């Protein structure tokens, strides 16, 4: 659904409130954008395939512009065979590089993110245990999957016909969430304060569900 369609829908839902006129289009767009992202966080857990994309990158490439979250799967091709890549944190680098039980090779590579870029090991600072020579090049053409960030809908730079990129079945949830957020502008001070507090709590809860849920979903896919 496009930015303009979202706005129209929210205004329609709010039409019985006489103070609707005080809400600027920009503010409604902003609430819709917040709502899209909140709903994204909730639905990516239950139906992650709808929110997943792949990208091919090389060592040192920046994160894609719509990067949201690593989707738990990546591979590197060695002699026509796809080798899975493990996602690690920076404090694990040394372990992958030096531990004899866990030495990263092109057959068992790892990826980590630093400076908002992808880095792979083994890299050229390492020696290939098979040949005893330094790796001539870093890994490149690595394919990895990620959850993309929903399209931004706020601001004059975003055209009214911009699509939010969300599945159709999420629309009702988006409008309901956006209307709830608009309510903070349509109530008296005390109620508005409570509404802000509620919006804040719901946003944090959506995050908590996302981080707990996505981990468990990814674990299921590993088990499969």
């Amino acid at each position, binding site marked *: 659904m496009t930015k303009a369609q979202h706005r129209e829908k929210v205004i329609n839902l709010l039409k019985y409130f006489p103070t609707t006129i005080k809400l*600027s289009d*920009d*503010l409604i767009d*902003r609430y819709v954008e*917040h709502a899209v*992202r*909140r709903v994204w*966080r909730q639905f990516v857990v239950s139906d992650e395939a709808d929110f997943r994309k792949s990208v091919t990158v090389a060592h040192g490439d*920046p*994160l*894609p*512009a*719509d*990067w*949201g*979250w*690593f989707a738990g799967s990546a591979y590197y091709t060695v002699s026509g065979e796809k080798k899975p890549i493990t996602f690690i*944190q*920076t*404090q694990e*680098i*040394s*372990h992958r*590089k*030096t531990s*004899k039980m866990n*030495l990263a090779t092109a057959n068992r590579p790892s990826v*980590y*993110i*630093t*400076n*908002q*870029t992808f880095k792979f090991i083994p890299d050229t*600072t*390492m*020696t290939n*245990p098979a040949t*005893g020579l*330094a790796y001539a090049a870093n890994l490149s053409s690595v394919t990895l999957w990620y959850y993309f*960030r929903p399209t*931004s809908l*706020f*601001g004059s730079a975003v055209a009214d016909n911009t699509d939010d990129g969300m599945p159709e079945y999420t629309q009702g949830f988006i409008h309901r969430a956006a209307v709830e957020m608009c309510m*903070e*502008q349509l109530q008296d*001070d005390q109620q*508005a*304060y409570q509404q*802000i*507090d509620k*919006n*804040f709590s719901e*946003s*944090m809860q959506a*995050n908590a569900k*996302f*981080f707990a849920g996505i981990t468990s979903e990814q674990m299921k896919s590993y088990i499969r």
Partner: protein
Amino acid sequence: MVFENYIWEVLERNKIRVVTNSMDWGLAIQVLNESAQVHYPHMLRADKSFYQKSEPFSAPGAGNTVNLPSDCYKVELVEVAVARGGAARKIDLIEFQDVNLNDYATGATNTPIYRVDKSTFDIFPASSGTIHYLRTIPYVTDIAKEMTDPGVGAEPPIHWLFEESWVTYACKLLKQQHYRLSENPSTVSQQLQGFEEAMEAVKNTADPMQIYASELPQKA
């Protein structure tokens, strides 16, 4: 999205029009930064990779001391290009010890050690390498700064998934501030209000000096 848009959002959602524009602007910047600090531990725990950063350092001179980067919150790993098993390797972190008096490493090139202090780290023997650390988030005043979107090399301070709760919490803080000013005004704000009334009175009278004269303190 840049900082200016979030300032706009906070002001628009709070609709504070009782104070001057400049005061709104400054307060919005302040509450957004306060909210960012409140969210930092949550964001860090949720997605550490968003805050991972690395920077090369060169071999230190006498004293073996290297300055930590100014945005360093926590050192994760110091990596030096020392050949051991053919790989660049992590070196060991020790605490509360003079690295130059290391009984175990005795200065061997293959077994360097380091110690992290408040704003520096000591490394022995002196080596070049890379420091991996978690970046902290700065107090932002630059309205053109990219705040949330990763992937553009801008090192945004706010994780995009926390954008809504970050700006909503800032709105909450600003509303609290507004209540403090409007419902429980301080002596200063009461006096400012009085000053505004006096200015109105000056504008509305043909003889402003007469108004002022009546308010001047009188000799006992």
